[in-house]
């Protein structure tokens, strides 16, 4: 799986590619519009992470060009501006997702996976984590073949964990993933804890394993033993 990162800030690009490469993706990085233009005309990528503000052009133009080329790659726009206008425009001209800086790498990773899933399986996709099977489009989860019923937040939580297998997820990133950036509730972490408790219980009840580990003071991590 190839990913192109179009980002003028070297440090950000490095962090992103380090995180994504551990997921098994091959990442390429360009830091300006011209290089990006060259790359998209020569190669094809499964997913592109496009910063809107580039020193020599707008990332939105790249998105438009990709659509013109009937490119099949997923596009995630990353912007420092939290502007609805840009977001609406980006999605209108064909981007698949929109993320505002500063973002969590775990969030970006989950979005990249979601975009690639949508693109490559034409909406049919299942993720298998040992005995847990997640049907992402139907939003159904089964453990050892038996469907378990999860609330919307529990499902989102599980998918977020499975997308970031073996990664430490901070409570902040989980809160933002579940409730968005307007989440400003002091005891949101209690809610995360409560959701996790319910999720664990539902999986354990069907004979699934307990894969979510608490990392003290930081957050949680889901991993196979």
């Amino acid at each position, binding site marked *: 799986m190839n990913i192109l990162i179009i980002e003028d800030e070297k440090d950000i690009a490095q962090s992103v590619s*380090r995180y994504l490469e551990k997921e098994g993706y091959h990442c390429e990085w360009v830091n300006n519009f011209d290089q990006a233009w060259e790359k998209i005309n020569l190669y094809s990528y499964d997913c592109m992470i496009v910063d809107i503000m580039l020193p020599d052009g707008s990332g939105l133009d790249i998105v438009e060009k990709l659509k013109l080329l009937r490119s099949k790659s997923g596009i995630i726009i990353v912007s420092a501006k939290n502007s609805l206008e840009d977001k609406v425009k980006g999605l209108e001209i064909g981007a698949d997702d929109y993320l505002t*800086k500063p973002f969590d790498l775990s969030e970006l990773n989950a979005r990249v996976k979601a975009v690639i899933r949508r693109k490559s399986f034409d909406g049919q996709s299942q993720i298998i984590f040992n005995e847990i099977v997640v049907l992402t489009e139907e939003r159904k989860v089964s453990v050892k073949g038996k469907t378990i019923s999860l609330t919307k937040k529990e499902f989102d939580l599980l998918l977020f964990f499975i997308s970031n297998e073996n990664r430490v997820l901070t409570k902040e990133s989980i809160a933002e993933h579940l409730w968005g950036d307007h989440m400003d509730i002091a005891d949101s972490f209690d809610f995360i804890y409560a959701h996790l408790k319910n999720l664990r219980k539902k999986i354990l009840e069907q004979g699934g394993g307990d894969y979510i580990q608490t990392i003290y003071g930081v957050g949680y991590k889901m991993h196979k033993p």
Partner: protein
Amino acid sequence: MKLLSLTNRYYISSILVIFIVGSIVSFQILKSTINREFNEKLFAERDQFIYEWHTYDGLREVLYLNIGDQIEVQSVDHRPEIEETLKDTVMFGAYEKKDLSFRKLRFADELNGQYYIITITKSLLPNEDLIQGIGEIMLFLITALIITLVLINRWIAGMVLEPFYYTLAAIKEFNITKPGPIDLMDTNVDEFKELNSVLDKMIVKNQKDYLNLKEFTENASHEIQTPLTIIKSKAELLLQESSLDEEALNDVMHIYEAAGRLSKLKHGLSLLTKIENNQFEDSEPINLKRFLEKEVNNLEELINLKELTLEKSYKAEPILVLNYDLAYILVTNLLNNAIKHNTERGRIAVTLNESELIIENTGRPIKGDPALLFERFKKNSHTKDSSGLGLALVKKICDLYGIKIIYSVNSNLHRMALSF
């Protein structure tokens, strides 16, 4: 009050005063002149009478009828002890068939040893008619003058004040977020020329300031986000390092948290600035009931987790024209607050009617002045997850749309009432 009615009021009242004073004065002058003339006529008649009376002996024998003035000759035996007197009197006029004013001149005379008292009575009617006529003319003149004045004023106001009204309309239409010069009418009137040029300068300066501020806000937003993203992402990478011990991990976590807080703070502040700068323009009609239902639904899981009782009462479906994002921030901030500051197994009540949205929640008493609740950074609890901007944002959004928000607390029941 309109400028025109104000000037008209002054014009008309000063004209009325001048007219009343002028009328009284001219009435008096006319009256005394006419009186004097009249008396002189009477005296002249007296002299003429005495002359004729003394000269033509035949007069005393002849019955002479003078229809004009009435002359009464009364012979008396002894010398009458009377002074010459002038007296106004009212008598019945046979012709006009009503009481009329007359003036009487009474004097004594002696002829051939015989004494007479002579009275000449003269009708005052022509003089009264004259004064009345003059009064009527003045009344007509003044009415005509006032009507003309009002009409001319209205016409002048329409014509002369046109550039002024045009400018006024242009200012009303003016929106600082829209670039370009303001459309003012060319005029030859110095005052309006000056007004327009001052306005033009002011507006150009304001637009420049506004653009600078906007640019600054956008730049600050962008330039701060980039290093923040670097800090956050590097911290996140470090958190994945299995080689770090717990202490180091905790330190990294603090860096990560601080970066997150800074980002939220910046987000809140730039939102406030944007609202203050009127940068949220696209408004749309929002069905508040449906909007509330959706947001309350989104939070219901949290409400259940906190074991709060939620009472919803939507009695109407008011439609408000708001920016969607701002409406979202307004409603979620209020609802989040009601959840956040609630007590264990507390209660939240959301009531909506045609002109009011009331969100009530049980909660601990707030420390400090409730009036400062909507100020920035006046947070009650010093929790790191509260930016201290939530209610300031709520207030700003309410102000922007002219929504009145009132906070009150009554025995640990906090109440936010929005009236629109």
